[in-house]
C-alpha cells in the first residue's frame, strides 16, 4: 500500500513537471512578446531590451526554465510582470473564492445527480427515466456561458431574487454554483443510473427484496453503496474540469477567483500568472485523481483485498 502510494505520488510529480515544461515552452515559444507589452506603446528598441534583461527574458530558454524550476522548488512561482507582486500571493488571495465556488458547484452536482440517477434507475424505462435521461443530454450540450446568462436574466434581472454579480454573501454564490452544478448533474445522473441498473439486477438485491425489506431500504442501504464507486472517480476528474469551467462562470458573474485572474493575465500576456494558474489547475487535476484512487479501497473492501 505504502509503495503504491509512493509510486502514485512520483507519477503525479512527474506529470506536474511535464505540465510545467509544456506550458513554459508554449508561452515562450508564442509570438506575443511580453517585454514589448510592458515597455508600452511608445517604447524604443533599447527600452524593450532593458525590460527584457530586467525580467531575465534575454537568457537562453533552458536557463530560464531551470531558474523557474529552482524557484518552484522553494515555493516561488515568480513575479507578475504587470502587477509586480509575487504570483503565489496573487493566487493565494484568489484561490478561496474559487474553492468556495467549486465546493458549492460539486455539491449541487452530486446531490442532484445522485437523486435523479437513483430515481431514473428505480423507474427504469418509465416516463421519469426518459425525462431525466433527456435532460441530462441537454445538460451536456448546453454551453456554460449561456446557462449563466439565462439564470442571470431570469433570477437577477427579471425576478430580482438574487444579485447580478459580485462576491461576499451566500446569495452571490447561488447562481454561479447552480450554473456549474446543473450542467454537470446530467453526467452524474447518467453514471449513477447505469451503475444502479447494473446493481439492481444482482442476486443479493433480489435476496434483500425477498426477505421483505422495504423498497427504500433496499435501494439506499443495499444497492446505492455499490453504485457509488464510479461516482467517486468522477468527482476526482471533475475537480480538473471545474478549473477550466470557472474561467467562464467567473467572467459572467464577476466572481473574483483564479479564473478571472488567469483571464486578465492572458489578455495582458502576464506569463508568470498564466504559468502559475495552469500549474495550480494541473495540481488540482492530479490531486483529484489521486484522492479518488485513495478513496476507492476505503469504499470498497474488494479493492482493499487485492
Amino acid at each position, binding site marked *: 500500500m505504502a509503495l503504491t502510494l509512493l509510486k502514485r505520488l512520483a507519477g503525479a510529480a512527474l506529470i506536474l513537471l511535464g*505540465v510545467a515544461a509544456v506550458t513554459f515552452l508554449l508561452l515562450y515559444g508564442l*509570438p*506575443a512578446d511580453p517585454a514589448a507589452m510592458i515597455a508600452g506603446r511608445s517604447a524604443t528598441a533599447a527600452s524593450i531590451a532593458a525590460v527584457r534583461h530586467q525580467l531575465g527574458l534575454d537568457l537562453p530558454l533552458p536557463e530560464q526554465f531551470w531558474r523557474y524550476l529552482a524557484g518552484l522548488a522553494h515555493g516561488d512561482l515568480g513575479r507578475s510582470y504587470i502587477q509586480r507582486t509575487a504570483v503565489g500571493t496573487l493566487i493565494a488571495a484568489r484561490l478561496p473564492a474559487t474553492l468556495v465556488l467549486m465546493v458549492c458547484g460539486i455539491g449541487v452536482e452530486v446531490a442532484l445527480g445522485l437523486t435523479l440517477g437513483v430515481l431514473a434507475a428505480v423507474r427504469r424505462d418509465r416516463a421519469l427515466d426518459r425525462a431525466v435521461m433527456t435532460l441530462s443530454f441537454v445538460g451536456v450540450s448546453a454551453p*456554460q456561458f449561456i446557462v449563466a446568462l439565462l439564470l442571470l436574466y431570469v433570477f437577477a434581472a427579471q425576478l430580482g431574487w438574487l444579485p447580478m454579480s459580485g462576491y461576499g454573501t451566500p446569495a452571490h454564490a447561488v447562481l454561479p454554483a447552480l450554473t456549474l452544478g446543473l450542467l454537470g448533474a446530467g453526467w452524474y445522473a447518467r453514471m449513477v443510473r447505469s451503475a444502479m441498473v447494473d446493481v439492481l439486477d444482482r442476486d443479493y438485491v433480489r435476496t434483500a427484496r425477498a426477505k421483505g425489506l422495504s423498497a427504500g431500504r433496499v435501494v439506499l442501504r443495499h444497492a446505492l453503496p455499490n453504485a457509488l464507486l464510479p461516482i467517486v472517480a468522477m468527482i476526482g476528474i471533475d475537480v480538473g*474540469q471545474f478549473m477550466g469551467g470557472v474561467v467562464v462562470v467567473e467572467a459572467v458573474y464577476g466572481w473574483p477567483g483564479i479564473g478571472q485572474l488567469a483571464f486578465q493575465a*492572458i489578455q495582458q500576456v502576464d506569463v508568470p500568472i498564466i504559468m502559475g494558474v495552469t500549474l495550480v*489547475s494541473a495540481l488540482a487535476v492530479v490531486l483529484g485523481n489521486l484522492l479518488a484512487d485513495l478513496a476507492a479501497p476505503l469504499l470498497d473492501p474488494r479493492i482493499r483485498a487485492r
Partner: protein
Amino acid sequence: MIAALKAMLRRPSTALALLVIATVVVCALAAPWLAPFPPDDQPFDGLSPDGAPLPPDAQHWLGTDTLGRDLLSRLLFGARTSLLIGLVANGAAVAIGMAVGTAAGYWGGFVGATLMRFTDLMMAFPALLLAIVLAALLHPSLWIVALVIALVNWVQVARIVYTETRGLAERDFILAERSLGAGTARIVGRHILPHLLPTAIVWGTLGIATTVLLEATLSFLGVGVQPPMPSWGNIIFESQSYFQSAPWLVFCPGAVILLTALSFNLVGDALRDLLDPLQRGRG
C-alpha cells in the same frame, strides 16, 4: 447503411436531431440566398431613434444587433463559421487521436509508453484554460481557433483508440496475418483501422458537439473568431452587455448553439448504440 439509417430514424429523438442538423447544414450552405440582409449591412433604420437594437418585427424577424445589423442574417452566416470549425477542427482532432492511439497501441513498448504518458500529460491540462491561452496569444482567427481546438480535443480519442488497438493487436487473427508475412502497413491498414472505423464515426459526430461548444465559448470570451466575421459565440460576445434590454441578442444564438450541440450529441449517441458490436442484436 440504409438499414442503419432506418434504425436511427425509428427513434423520434434521433430523427428530430438529424432534421436539425440537416437544417443547419442547409442554412450554412445557402446563407447568401436565405439571409434577408447582408450580414455586415448596417441600414440607417437598423437601430431605434435612441440608438438601441430593434426587437423582432416583420422586417427583422429576430431583431437587430447593437450595430443595427439583422440578427437572422448574422446567425445564418454564423452557421458557416461554426460548422466549418466543427468539421475541420474535429476532423483534425480525430485524425491526430487515431494516429497517436493506433501507433501507441500497435507498437507498444517504449514508443507506446512515451506517447501515452504524453497523452496523460495533456489530460492533466485544463482543456478550456489551455485553449484560451493558446487562442489569445496566437492572435485568434478562424483557422487558429480550429487549430487550437484540434490541439486540445484529440486526447480523448487517442485514449480510446489506444485501448481498442491494444485489444486488437493481441487477437489471433492479427497474429495469423503476421505469421503469413504481412507487414505493418497491411496489418494496420487492412485489419486494425477497419475495426476502429465505428469509433472514428462516433467520435467524429460527438466531437462536433464539443467543438461547436468550445468555439462558442472561446468566441464568447473574445478570444475566438473575431468580429465582424459572425460566429454564434461572438454574436453573444458583442451584445452581452445589452442582454437585459435586448435579450433576443443573447438567447437566439444561445438556443441555436444548444440545439446544434444537442443534435450532434443525440446522433452520436445513436450511432454508438448502432455501431457497437456488443450492443448489436440486443435490442
